Every structure is written in C-alpha cells, then in structure tokens.
C-alpha cells in the first residue's frame, strides 16, 4: 500500500541518516563548533570572507592531514611531512627564481622529490626495520637543517607570477585554490581511502599485519606505498602553501605538524591503525582550522587563544570518545 511504502522509506531514510552521523559524528560535532563560535559575532563569522578564509587555509592542513592519516591508518606515523613540504618548496623556489623554470616543469619535480623522500622513509621502516617515529623524525631534522643552511636564516621570495598564480588567483570571484585544489584533494582522498584497493589494504595492514599477510596482502609494499603517497602529498602541500604565501621561511610549515596529527585523530583515525575515513580527516581539518580562524574572528585575546583552542579540541574529542565507548558497549 502506498502508505506502507512511504512509511518504510521514511524509516529507512531516518535509519540511514542516523547510521551515517553515528559513523561520522565529526560532522555534527563540527557544525556545533561552527555555530557555537559564530554565535557571539555572527556578522564576522557567518559570511563569505570568513568561510573562504577557513577553507583556503584548511586546504594545506587537509593535504598534510591526508598524508598523515594514510600513514597512521597503517599503524605508523610520519613526522617528516613538514620537512618534505619545506624541502620541496625550497626546490620549487630554487628552480623558479634561480633558473626561471616555469611552474609546469617545477611542479612534477617537486612531487617526484616528495615521492623519493616518502619511498626512502617507507623502505627504511619496512625493509630495514627502523621505527617510523625515529625514521621520520630524523628525516625531518635533516630536511629542516637543510632548509636552514639553504635559506641562510633569511626568507626567500621573488617567485614568478605563474608560480603564485594558483595560490592567489580568482575565477568568478572565487579563489582558484577552492575551485581546483580543494575539490581535487577531496576527490583524491575519498578515492584513495574509500574506493581504491589500496585503501582497503591500508586498513587491513593497519588492523592486523599478520592477518593481512595471511590474506595475501603484500604488507611491505603497502606500507612503503603509504609513505610514498605521504611524501607526494607533503610536496603538494609545500607547493600550495608556497604558492599562496609567495615566501619560504626557515620554519616553513612547522606550525602544521601537530594539527596534521590531531586532525585525522579527531576525525576518527585510530592511532593504533586499522581505522579511519577521509570524511573524518576532512572534517577534522576543518574543525582545527575553524577553531583557529573563529577565535581570531570573534576577538579572543591572544593570551587565551591556545587555552581555548585546546579546550575546544579536548571537549570535541571527549564527546566523540565517550560516544564510541557507548556504541561498543551497546
């Protein structure tokens, strides 16, 4: 009967929504924080400029969080992502400013450099047996040390207009980063983690390496590939940030290391591996960036920003953790 069918569809829809938001609790959590932050000064927060600001600056964080998230899903960690971002950004500057190479040639070189460093990390971790924390920390020190020597303590600029085009141009009054980079990263991230075989392998390997091996998954290759992808994404972050900022400094990207770990974890990626989603990484990054932008927009004193920032993140993650425990018990 029509009424019965309608009743069945409505319940199914409600159950689907309930199941979705239960799985991706980060989304309603993010919306609560977004509304909560803007409540005090809606005219400064619920407007095009503020939302654009959040999305633009979240793009670099999202790329690094995706890099980090992929590695964390396998049960490892990658501290070298900011070092790789800085190193490849420096090479981009070097080739662009010193040799006047166009960005279409520079960009693939930067990605290749990121891939090389990522593959090196993966090889050392999986084949040689160096713990990922130690390996990637060492590489981070090496690359930051290189950046210090290369910059000589100065900041580097003078990029050509084609290099900074992506970071500063607008199309139809919308920043190109939002039209091109952010959607591409979202598509790539979603595909990698949710739709590709690699994503499935990452989750299996992170969940239980032995079981994954018995299932016929090449664990070594999967982990090396995870770090390689992480390196490539870090190089992409280096390019996007240097293009947007037009400057490379000695401490390039350093402020993004802890947020790049926190964002995926807040979004549901398990630090012990085997669990995670791109949607979680996306909204985790947005949450971190929204809090950071929101506190400035509403005028919180700088003396208290770190405290408030930490408290909001702690509350958000506690709510999610308690909810997950209840689900498990149920």
């Amino acid at each position, binding site marked *: 009967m029509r009424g019965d069918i309608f009743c069945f569809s409505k319940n199914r829809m409600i159950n689907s929504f309930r199941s979705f938001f239960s799985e991706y609790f980060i989304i309603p959590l993010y919306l609560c924080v977004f509304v909560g932050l803007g409540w005090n000064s809606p005219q*400064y927060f619920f407007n095009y400029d503020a939302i654009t*600001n959040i999305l633009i*600056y979240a793009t670099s964080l999202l790329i690094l969080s995706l890099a980090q998230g992929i590695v964390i899903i396998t049960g490892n960690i990658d501290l070298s992502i900011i070092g790789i971002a800085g190193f490849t950004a420096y090479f981009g500057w070097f080739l662009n400013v010193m040799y006047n190479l166009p960005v279409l040639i520079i960009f693939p070189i930067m990605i290749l450099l990121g891939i090389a460093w990522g593959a090196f990390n993966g090889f050392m971790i999986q084949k040689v047996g160096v713990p990922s924390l130690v390996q990637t920390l060492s590489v981070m020190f090496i690359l930051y040390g290189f950046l210090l020597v290369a910059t000589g*303590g100065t900041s*580097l*600029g003078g990029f050509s207009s084609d290099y900074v085009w992506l970071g500063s141009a607008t199309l139809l009054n919308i920043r190109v980063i939002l039209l091109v980079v952010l959607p591409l990263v979202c598509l790539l991230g979603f595909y990698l983690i949710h739709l590709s075989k690699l994503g499935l392998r990452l989750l299996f390997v992170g969940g239980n390496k032995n079981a994954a091996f018995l299932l016929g998954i090449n664990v070594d290759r999967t982990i090396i590939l995870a770090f390689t992808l992480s390196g490539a994404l870090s190089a992409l972050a280096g390019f996007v*940030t240097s293009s*947007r*900022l037009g400057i490379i400094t000695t*401490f390039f990207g350093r402020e993004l290391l802890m947020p790049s770990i926190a964002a995926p974890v807040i979004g549901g990626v398990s630090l012990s591996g085997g669990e995670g989603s791109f949607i979680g990484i996306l909204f985790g990054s947005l949450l971190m960036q929204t809090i950071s932008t929101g506190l400035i927009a509403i005028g919180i004193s700088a003396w208290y920003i770190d405290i408030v920032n930490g408290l909001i993140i702690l509350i958000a993650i506690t709510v999610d953790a308690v909810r997950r425990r209840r689900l498990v018990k149920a």
Partner: protein
Amino acid sequence: MSEGGKISRRKYLKFVAAGAVVAAGVAAGAYYLSSMPALTPTPTPTPAKKFIPYVNKTRGALFFVCIEEAFKRTLEARGFTSEVYDAKGDAVLFNEHLESGAAKKPAAIACNPIDSNAQAYTIAKIRRDLKIPVGIADTPCTATYVDATVVFNNFIGGRLAGLKAIELLEEKYGSTDGLRVVTFHGYLGSDAWRARMEGFDSVMAEHPEIIYDKVPMTDETASADITAKNADIYLSKHPDVACMNFASEGPWLEAALGVMEAKGLLYHRSHPKHILMVGVDGYPNTFRRIIEGIYDVSSAQDPLFYGEALAELLVDYVIQGKSIPEGFEYTETEKYAWGKGGLNLPAKVKVEPWGPTLYQPNYVITEENVWNIKHWGVRVVREFHLWDSITERSYKIQGIEPKEIPKWQELFGFSAPDVRPPWVK
C-alpha cells in the same frame, strides 16, 4: 625471587631504597666538596687566546644572522677568531653550547640569549668558575651579572611606532576620534615581541578615542602563514582599519601585504584609502615598501651595531680589564644611520643590575630618511651581501603608476631594471 623469574615487590622496594640512599650520599658529598674551596681546584685563567665563540639563539631569521656576522667580522678585523653555535631556539641546547664554547678556554664568550632566567646559571658558572668574561647582544640576561651587554629598548621601540602612528593619523584625518588601529603582535612568549606590544599599547592607552584591536601576528613557530591567515580574517572584518602596526617586518609584513593586495586594500601613501602601516625592526624589505609608498614608518633596531659594538667592547675593554662606566659613550657611530653624520643620536652605557649595558638609541625610518645607506637593512645588502629575496616581490599598488615609483634598487647599490643584485646567483 618469586616464580617465573620476576622480582618480588619486597626486593624491588629494597633496591629503590638502596638507590635513594646512594644518590643522596653522592649529592651530599658533591655539595660538601663544592663548598670547600681548599678541596676544589681553583681554575687558573689560561692566557687568553684570541678566540671568542658566539652562541646564537637561532639562525632562523635574518636579524640574528646579522648580529652573528657583524660580530665575527669585527673580531676578524681585530685579529680574533670566532666560532658560532646555533641553539635553534632551545634554551637547554643554548646552555650546552655555552659550556662547550667555554670549555675551549676562549678569551671571552658572547651570546644572544633566548631566556634570561634559563641562561643565568650557566653564565654565572662560566664567569665564576672558569673566569671567562661574558658579553651579550640583543636580549639582556637580567638574572645575573654580565661583563658587557648591547641592547635595544623594545618597549621604547614599540612606543615610538605608536607615537608615529598617532602623528600620521592626525596628519591624515585631522583627529584620531573613532579611528581603528590594529597591532599584529608577536608571540607573547618572546620578551622582545611582548615589550614592543606593551610599548605600542601604552600609546594607545593615552588615546581612548581610538578603537584598538590586537591580533596575533604569529606563534612560537614564527610562521608567516599565520600572519596571512590572521590578517585575512581581520581585514575581512575591518577593511576600514586606519592603521596597522607590526611587531616585526620581514616575512610577516610581506605575508600581510600579499593579503592586502588580494583584497584590493593596497594603496599608495598619497591615496585617501591608504592604510597607514608602522612596525619595528627595519628589515631590507621595509625600505622597498617605504619607497614604494605602501609602508610608512619603521621603528628600527640595528643588529649590525649589536654585533660590532659587542665585539669592540669585549676586545678593547673587557678582555683588557678596563671598566665600562656609567655614561660611557660609544663614539664610533659614523657607520650607523642613527649615529654621527646621520641622526646624531648617542649610544651610551647605563650600569644596570646585570652589568654595563650599551643602549642603541631608538629611531625611526620614514620617507624622509629612507635613502640613507647606513641603515642596517641597507648595509646588510651592500656590505654584507646578505640578500633578503622577499624584497624582490612586486605588488599591484593602487593610486600610483608603476613608472612613478622611485627606483628602490639604487638604494641597495644595483641598477634599476633588476629586482635582485647581480652578485646573487
């Protein structure tokens, strides 16, 4: 032992207690020995080598590299050698470097401290036990006595920026009633950046009619990306801001200018919509921006003076055993824009509780005196060949034709068509 080879709790507690007793005994013995001068070898000062190491708080900014370079070059001109250690912003590593430098029995040791209290003990130990004089540049170590200090008053620096801001606002608007002023302050954990903010705050406090905002310019990572992000959100909120103050120029100013350009807020000084901009330091890029007419005033400090004067004080006075009395005037100031033949401001010593301190006089760089090649931001390019390539960036400046902008390159000693010196490759 219980079964399975595990240690029992009783045995474990006995072990811990024994360890505690031994440790207490060692500590007591060491204290006793150290307090008995007859038992500790009195360090006899070895003949001073012509060697003075320098511990740099960080090489992560041009400013600190300049102090180090100026120090080294002045020492070399006097027949001394130096070694530089980079503490990378880590106070513990800084102390380790101080001790490593002191272990080489130098004639003196110089440094640019991160934190006065964290460094005080090590500096005192070096002076007392090793009889090695210590000199300090930039950040005074107020918690212990030091043989020579060369500094800049950051509070007055910030205050001077504030006073010039008020002067420019009154000149442009007739009064400061209802005008909005923002300060992009540095990381509050940094003494220098905090003092500048407080100096600027003190001027704003005298003008309650001004709407005064404070926004972080950066955090402890000194990231310029944070400047861009915060400037973006602030200028979206308040595009009508009348004046912006920066805790430091350099990459942070460039990040903000990039945002202003993107938002269409970058106007020449002559245009009514120009947002007044003031700041502290006097980096090389500041000069181009003042000449281009988008930046207005820099309350400058002089890192080359810190390095050069400290080296001379250590070599000509401290190592020779001569005192540096109250009121002592440092007279070799012809090479500085603020010195003889320039602004003629004296650099004098004040004997503070932490020792004789030579203060660099506070001064400002404006449109009127920007073409003086003795400013540190110009000298560092012309003499030291340290090129700050962020100066190469060009902005679309509204309210002026590009051909009307003076050739800023000539200030740095190279020809107009190039955006970088020919010796940079």
